[in-house]
């Protein structure tokens, strides 16, 4: 179906999310919509899918104007959207998720639906078990379910909002193949992303949004530099690897073991020097999360010894390790890191732990202002944290950390952030390394691991590699290890340094 957006305007309070956007996408096209966080991509797509109303503007399908006031209208018009976090029902079964929302008889007719589901899934090479519960599926599989569900409902325009966040490389390949197949079937695909490589590898054409405006268009062959310039209004480069000067051993792990009900991580030996960055690579849930929480003192270890600067921290709580200069930034920023409902000043007041019974609001506000300026956070002392964008939440988390730290533990420090924020966050982290803080970080982005770590630990199903020099690795080798290939049969021959 041919889709045309005419002069779409949408403001939220003072923020102009979409300003006079015009876009025309012919049927059978994969249209990329590129822009950094907060550029207005999601807003535009939510307007098209009926999730929000535009203040002004028109939507034309196959040249005819349509009125879309709700998702129900959009579905009727043949427009379906896959949200970044799949909007499905986790505690329910795949088949129930599939049949819901289709009008018709009182009874769902699961038998026929089951056949349709299998047929559609087979067409795209998806392996979906109709009787599985959705909360046991990966994000990638949940996307697959949404795709076949929308097609079953008769969608001819499919919108994908940041679909490559949180899915594995293999699932990404399958997703892209499915999108190409959809385009071949003359469906219109709108692909929203802030990841250049995804857009370059997939889209027939690209538009770029910046601060609510449509600022440019491009067709293959794309030049990365041109796209980046359109996205940010200036050229940005990641820069060379800069190894930090490292000092004495600070964190020392001996035979550290930790487990939960489904995974065991056994016998990790590691000596981290002050100012060193260690990247923890592996598929989600391979043990790196457990390991991280054990080092932070949030999980009880089942064996081994943790010491920091010669002090034994084994079995001590996070409170104790925090007192000795350990900080942990979890992946779920709003759930574990920040307090939704409180503003930035309140966060700084909470974090600073001054004496006295009454709160020094003046001081708190001044501190908030100072840190906001220093960390380049787009917000005011009175901004509530849940209203900040992901990148600004991450900056706020960093700004809340104590000034001098010995060990910083980070989970996915740049997940969901655009390049500019990523570079900024890492420049701040490297600053800390220069002051002698050691960093351990988990990431699913191989480039990020190789770019910023000095050494790498690879996790696979609870097995842990010895520390590998990042400079001697490449993404192919790392990708193999993460996928469980190239691991020695017996225990890995320890290649630890003398001080380990």
């Amino acid at each position, binding site marked *: 179906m041919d889709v045309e957006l005419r002069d779409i305007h949408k403001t939220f309070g003072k923020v102009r999310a979409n300003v006079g956007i015009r876009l025309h996408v012919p049927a059978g096209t994969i249209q990329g919509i590129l822009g950094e966080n907060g550029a207005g991509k999601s807003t535009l797509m*939510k307007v098209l*899918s009926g*999730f*929000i109303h535009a203040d002004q503007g028109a939507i034309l399908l196959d040249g005819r104007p349509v009125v879309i006031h*709700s*998702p*129900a209208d959009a*579905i*009727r018009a043949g427009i379906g*959207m896959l*949200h970044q976090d799949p*909007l*499905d*029902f*986790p*505690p*329910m079964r795949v088949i*129930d998720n599939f*049949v*819901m*929302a*289709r009008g*018709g*008889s*009182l*009874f*769902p007719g699961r038998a026929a639906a089951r056949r349709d589901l299998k047929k559609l899934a087979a067409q795209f090479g998806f392996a979906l078990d109709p009787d599985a519960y959705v909360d046991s599926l990966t994000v990638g599989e949940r996307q697959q379910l949404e795709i076949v569900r929308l097609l079953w409902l008769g969608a001819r325009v499919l919108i994908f909002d940041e679909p490559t966040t949180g899915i594995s490389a293999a699932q990404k390949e399958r997703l892209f193949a499915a999108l190409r197949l959809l385009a071949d079937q003359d469906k219109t695909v709108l692909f929203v992303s802030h990841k250049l490589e995804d857009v370059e590898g997939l889209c027939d054409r690209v538009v770029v949004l910046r601060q609510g405006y449509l600022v440019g268009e491009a067709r293959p062959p794309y030049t990365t530099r041109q796209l980046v310039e359109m996205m940010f209004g200036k050229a940005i480069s990641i820069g060379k690897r800069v190894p930090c000067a490292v000092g004495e051993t600070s964190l020392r792990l001996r035979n550290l073991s930790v487990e939960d*009900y489904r995974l065991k991580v056994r016998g990790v030996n590691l000596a981290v020097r002050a100012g060193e960055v260690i990247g923890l690579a592996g598929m989600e849930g391979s043990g790196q999360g457990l390991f991280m929480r054990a080092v932070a003192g949030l999980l009880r270890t089942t064996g081994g010894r943790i010491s920091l600067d010669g002090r034994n921290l084994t079995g001590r709580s996070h409170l104790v390790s925090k007192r000795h200069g350990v900080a942990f930034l979890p992946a779920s920023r709003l759930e574990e890191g920040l307090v939704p409902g409180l503003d930035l000043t309140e966060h700084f007041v909470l974090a600073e732990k001054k004496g006295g019974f009454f709160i020094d609001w003046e001081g708190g506000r001044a501190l908030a202002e100072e840190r906001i300026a220093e960390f380049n956070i787009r917000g005011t002392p009175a901004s509530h944290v849940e209203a900040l964008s992901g990148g600004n939440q991450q900056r706020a988390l960093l700004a809340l950390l104590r000034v001098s730290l010995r060990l910083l533990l980070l989970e996915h420090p740049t997940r969901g952030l655009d390049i500019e924020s990523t570079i900024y966050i890492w420049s701040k982290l490297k600053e800390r390394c220069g002051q002698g803080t050691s960093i351990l970080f988990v990431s699913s982005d191989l480039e990020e691991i190789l770019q910023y770590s000095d050494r790498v630990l690879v996790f696979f199903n609870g097995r842990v590699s010895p520390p590998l020099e990042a400079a001697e690795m490449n993404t192919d080798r790392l990708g193999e290890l993460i996928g469980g290939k190239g691991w020695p049969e017996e225990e890995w021959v320890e290649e630890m340094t003398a001080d380990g």
Partner: protein
Amino acid sequence: MTTEQILVGLASVLAAAAPVMFAVIGETISERAGVINLSMNGTILLSAMGGFAVAMTSDSLLLGFLGGMVIGALVALVVAFSSITLHQSQVAVGFVLAIICRDLAYFLGNPYVAQSGPRLNTAPVPGLAAVPYLGTLLFNQTLVTYLSFGVILLAWLWIYKTRPGLMLQGIGERPAAAFVRGTNVNAMRYLYTILGGAIIGLAGPSYSLSVKAGWMGTISGLDGIGWIALAITIFGGWNPLRAAFGAYLFALLQWLGLVLQSSLPNVPSQVLQVAPFPLMILTLLLVNIGNAEWVARTLAALPAGPRRVVTRLLRALRASPPAALGVPFESE
């Protein structure tokens, strides 16, 4: 006790559970849609009084029951309006309503205290009532008890077997996902809260026109039933069949308390009267104990055989509330 006595006793358990059943099923439906109707205790009293008053003045049992349903639906409408439209706390509004409705029932019901009014008779099902055992147990009951059987089955069928019922689960689980599937979430929440309220409203007349016929004001002995029904809803894991099991268990425990009184003369009667309540709490604990981390850790230490049995048992018992229970929904 003879077999016949036991059967008659169990039949009385089924009958005594009917009002609680209406309350539990009504609440289950409302909470499935994401709205907690905490006013239940007051609604039951007010509808008991109102249903009795209507039936007495009009001399029509049917009107009495309808009156109860209308009262239940109106109270639920207040809960729905204040939470869905005005975004007020469901817990606060429901709790206040529970108290207001109870006191209103006592105040407005003064003229009807200890009056004689109509009462529902047993209606044996022709043919089936003569079937040995089952006849006495199931088919020699009042219409209200039959209706309670029907409500359990219908609610279960609706929630798990029909298309709108699936969406009802979805609305309570993740309203935003229901919304993108084209559902008017708030309209549906209104509908199910009011429907649930009407069913809860059947509980009152079931007492005052059948199980404990008449209106006795503050000594009616109905105060507190609503809170028990609320606990049973949770025990039932928002599943009508499990909830029905909980309601019957509670009625059975109460009956046992009465029966055992004569055979255990040394135990103070208060102990037996109160016993069902702590037993209910204990059951509730068992239901959710599987969620605790220390249980998981203790289980891990067990040998594989028993561990599998216990784990499976706990998982079967465990129930999670609808994820969006009590959370207002607003489309952007």
